[in-house]
């Protein structure tokens, strides 16, 4: 695709002091520092998971013989076995695998939107932002489904913060806190993505002459994907 556009060459990178520290604009650098602090928050949650998990006995028997009990930590492939529309079929970790794929895919569409922004290609930015928003909504819907199955529990024994049919109460507490905190981040990301999409359609960035906002929100969106990579490993795989 080829077209012409009037562009104000970006002088936005220069800070008010007249220089550009670390070759990054103020907004981009601050987004990075915010993400470092957010990384600390998520690490604290995940390391707490490690602390509490290792303060409980592990299940050491055969995987086939595993039975839920409050006296040891459950093994994830026995807890997360459901898949939508395939009721009664045992598909361990398949759904969470799909969720991982959705999030990585939406990271790809986001970085494609950023790339389109570098070329001032408004139409392509709109297209990729829409796909990214779609991916985010798919992920949130999947998580809602995952939570409802988890809370539903086994044979009328529901999971809540005090009690759950899978293992020690702390197992469900950590599941709700860690995936919930991550899900809240995804929700914020989708809202930010919608705002960016709206501004793109309204020509805000076209008039501004650059699409750096897409890049900054993109950093946040990739961070959310990054956190999920860790949640996926420590919650579902290990």
């Amino acid at each position, binding site marked *: *695709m*080829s*077209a*012409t*556009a*009037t*562009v*104000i*060459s970006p*002088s*936005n990178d*220069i800070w008010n002091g007249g220089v550009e520290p*670390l*070759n*990054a604009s103020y907004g981009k*650098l601050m987004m*990075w*520092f915010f*993400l*470092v602090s957010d*990384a*600390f928050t998520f*690490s*604290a949650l995940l*390391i707490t998971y*490690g*602390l509490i998990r*290792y*303060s*409980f*006995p592990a299940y050491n028997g*055969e*995987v086939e013989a595993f039975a839920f009990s409050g006296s040891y930590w459950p093994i994830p*492939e026995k807890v997360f076995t459901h898949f939508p529309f395939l009721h009664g079929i045992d598909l361990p*970790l398949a759904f969470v*695998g799909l969720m*991982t*794929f959705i999030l*990585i*895919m939406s990271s*790809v569409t*986001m*970085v494609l939107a950023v*790339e*389109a922004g*570098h*070329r*001032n*290609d408004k139409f392509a930015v709109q297209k990729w932002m829409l796909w990214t928003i779609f991916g985010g909504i798919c992920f949130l819907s999947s998580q809602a489904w995952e939570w409802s199955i988890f809370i539903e529990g086994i044979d009328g024994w529901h999971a809540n913060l005090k009690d759950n049919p899978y293992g020690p109460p702390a197992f469900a507490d950590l599941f709700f806190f860690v995936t919930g905190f991550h899900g809240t981040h995804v929700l914020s990301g989708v809202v930010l993505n919608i705002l960016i999409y709206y501004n793109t359609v309204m020509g805000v960035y076209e008039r501004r*002459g650059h699409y750096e906002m897409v890049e900054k929100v*993109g*950093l946040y969106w*990739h*961070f959310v*994907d*990054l956190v999920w*990579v*860790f949640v996926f*490993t420590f919650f579902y795989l*290990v």
Partner: protein
Amino acid sequence: MSSSHSAIIESVVISDQTPESIAQRKTIWVTFYILLAITAFEFVIAFLKGPMGMPKLLVITIFVTLTLVKAFYIVAEFMHLKHEAKGLIMSIVVPITFIVWLLVALLTEGGAMITRWFH
């Protein structure tokens, strides 16, 4: 322009066929396939670890290593950190290493708790 900064108004051609643009998109897709392949491999390990009788420490080491590899690709390529100024890379990566400290401290603590409660 109400901005105090100097601005040069110019006309540019929008094209997704410049060598730079093509190379960037190629990097994006290569990164995607690497992430996809690693995740698929993690699944294979998750299902083979039981039947193959892999030691727990080995499984955890594989998963943690692969997760760090994935994290590297997301941060370096998708978040573009690899191509930023060295000072920026350092101000992000150096503070993150403190997390390792917290990890070691709290896992040791978790091990101490199990000894007190269950033995």
